[in-house]
């Protein structure tokens, strides 16, 4: 058995998925495999096709081409109610005429899973698991948005799905509830071991919750890897720009560095490209060190000027303009306790370890 077949037997496999609406091709040849118990985030900007892909998985859309395999079975043309998938929607989707308990019991009831007593006790257990044990008899309009999404999560789990599909379930919630529910979703997913696909356009959400992240753009999966790998070694310029913050500088390779305008920026990764080739240098803000100009320039440092100072609590992000030519901008994250003396317009030395920058061929 090859590796693809192994994954297909135990999880989800999407192969050659294409979807077109009129003249607009939304998904272009998507191939993806999810292992059993894995949480994968589909991450990308609006219109990249991530929700369409999720809806194809759920059975609400049929691909023009390609195959969806679930546990070794072809479910491409299986209607949604015949698939063993639970879904939580972006919009509050609780049935308004039912209490939280009745909502959670709905799936087992229509699927005929167990008798009434066992359905109710299971629904109560799931509501307790999402922290709503004291609210089981409330109607949706009597609950907050976060509580409604918890009920929706319990309802999706009640049908004992093979896959849990989450379509931007936190996007309508405020920041605090969002962070709390995010970690609870991850905890519950790990406890239950359900293979989960989570759609989001929020990179922080994707990086913090996933086993793997699939970064999508214009109907393609550009990179699918662990959050760490996506962050540290983005496959291309789009991924590097979309994930995390950082400076992106266009230049040409020159030995162990990149020449950007008149500036020469140290980057060992430049040596992987032929000399003189057009590249982009990506530099994460946590890799940049700042020194005031009244000290001697550290090795490889370039002169820069503070252009913007943004306070984020424990961290302060400083935007820097490079002096030499029209080279571009980089960012530096400093502990806020040490960032107080950097003011707008201040000349500084910016330096970094030569192995830190990522250098990618310019497209």
């Amino acid at each position: 058995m090859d590796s693809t077949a192994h994954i297909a037997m135990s999880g989800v496999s999407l192969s050659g998925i294409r979807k077109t609406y009129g003249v607009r091709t939304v998904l272009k040849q998507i191939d993806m495999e999810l292992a059993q118990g894995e949480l994968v985030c589909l991450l990308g900007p609006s219109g990249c096709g991530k929700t369409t892909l999720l809806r194809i998985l759920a059975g609400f859309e049929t691909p023009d081409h390609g195959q969806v395999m679930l546990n070794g079975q072809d479910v491409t043309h299986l209607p949604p109610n015949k698939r063993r998938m639970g879904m939580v929607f972006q919009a509050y989707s609780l049935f308004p005429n039912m209490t939280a308990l009745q909502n959670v019991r709905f799936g087992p009831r229509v699927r005929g899973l167990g008798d009434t007593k066992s359905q109710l006790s299971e629904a109560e257990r799931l509501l307790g698991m999402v922290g709503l044990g004291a609210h089981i008899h409330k109607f949706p309009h009597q609950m907050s948005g976060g509580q409604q999404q918890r009920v929706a999560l319990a309802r999706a789990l009640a049908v004992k799905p093979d896959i849990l599909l989450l379509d931007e379930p936190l996007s309508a919630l405020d920041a605090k509830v969002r962070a709390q529910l995010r970690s609870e979703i991850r905890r519950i997913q790990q406890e239950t071991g359900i293979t989960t696909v989570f759609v989001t356009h929020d990179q922080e959400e994707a990086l913090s919750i996933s086993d793997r992240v699939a970064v999508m753009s214009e109907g393609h999966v550009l990179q699918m890897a662990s959050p760490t790998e996506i962050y540290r070694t983005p496959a291309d310029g789009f991924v590097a720009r979309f994930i995390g913050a950082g400076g992106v500088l266009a230049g040409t390779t020159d030995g162990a560095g990149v020449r950007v305008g008149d500036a020469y920026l140290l980057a060992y990764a430049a040596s992987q490209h032929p000399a003189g080739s057009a590249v982009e240098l990506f530099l994460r803000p946590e890799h940049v060190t700042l020194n005031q100009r009244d000290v001697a320039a550290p090795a490889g440092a370039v002169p820069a000027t503070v252009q913007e100072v943004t306070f984020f609590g424990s961290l302060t992000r400083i935007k820097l303009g490079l002096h030499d030519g029209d080279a571009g901008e980089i960012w530096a994250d400093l502990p806020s306790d040490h960032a107080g003396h950097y003011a707008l317009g201040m000349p500084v030395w910016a330096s970094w370890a030569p192995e830190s920058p990522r250098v990618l061929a310019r497209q």
Partner: protein
Amino acid sequence: MSVTASEVEAPLPKPSARKAYGARRTLSTGNWIIIALGAIFFITPLVMTGIFSFWEGGSKYGWSAYVLMFEAPGFWASLFLSLRLGVETMILTFVLLVPAMIFVHLKAPKLKPLFEFISNLPFVIPAVALIAGLTTVYTGPAWLISTPNYLVIPYFFLCLPYTFRSLEVGLGTLDVRTLTEAGQSLGGGWGQIIFLVILPNLRSALVGAVLLIMTTVIGEFTFASVLLFHNFAVFINDTGQNAITEAAALSLFAFLLTWVFMLGVLITSRRGAATVGGAH
């Protein structure tokens, strides 16, 4: 879990609290004058009709018109016929219109303007023209065209502008697509989703549609008269030809019947709202 949802999330304000805020507003004198004028405009004809219905000639007043009305041959038959036709129209509406509107909301939202245009046609097509067209189109079967049941077809169209609007408002307050997809993802079939999810949440709209159908059908005269069926409105008209106080009593009775329907509908929908909670 160390922290419960209730501890960190404040629930939305209760609807009752929002209503209480609105209830504190008082009406101005100008508002009261407008309401009083409106009440006089609507109530005066009813009061005068009521007084006239008790007139027994000269300065004598009594219940004779009402006694004669209830004892008149054809009264109960025509009343029950109108009620039966109302129920049949309601069934036809629920079987044809409700699924069609749910389908349009779910699968063909672009057809909504066309649907709305068609539903408003009965406003601009004269009743006589409509009945002429229908009698041309529907020429059988005999059990339908030769019985008063035939009236259900024009009544369906006659009520369409009202029933469409009532259901459209109800469907507009629901995210039908998301609720349907949620139901499907949980394993529900179309029947289960429509009967367990969509229709219970359309209770107010459906009850409103029923009210409008019953009041329209009970008062309908032209179709029944042209097609020579003896419904309640035709009975009132016939009675009015030679017994005008009875006709006045009948008119008041028809009004009362409508009000009873309305009261029943209001009570039902309020009870429904209390039971189903966030359905509205």
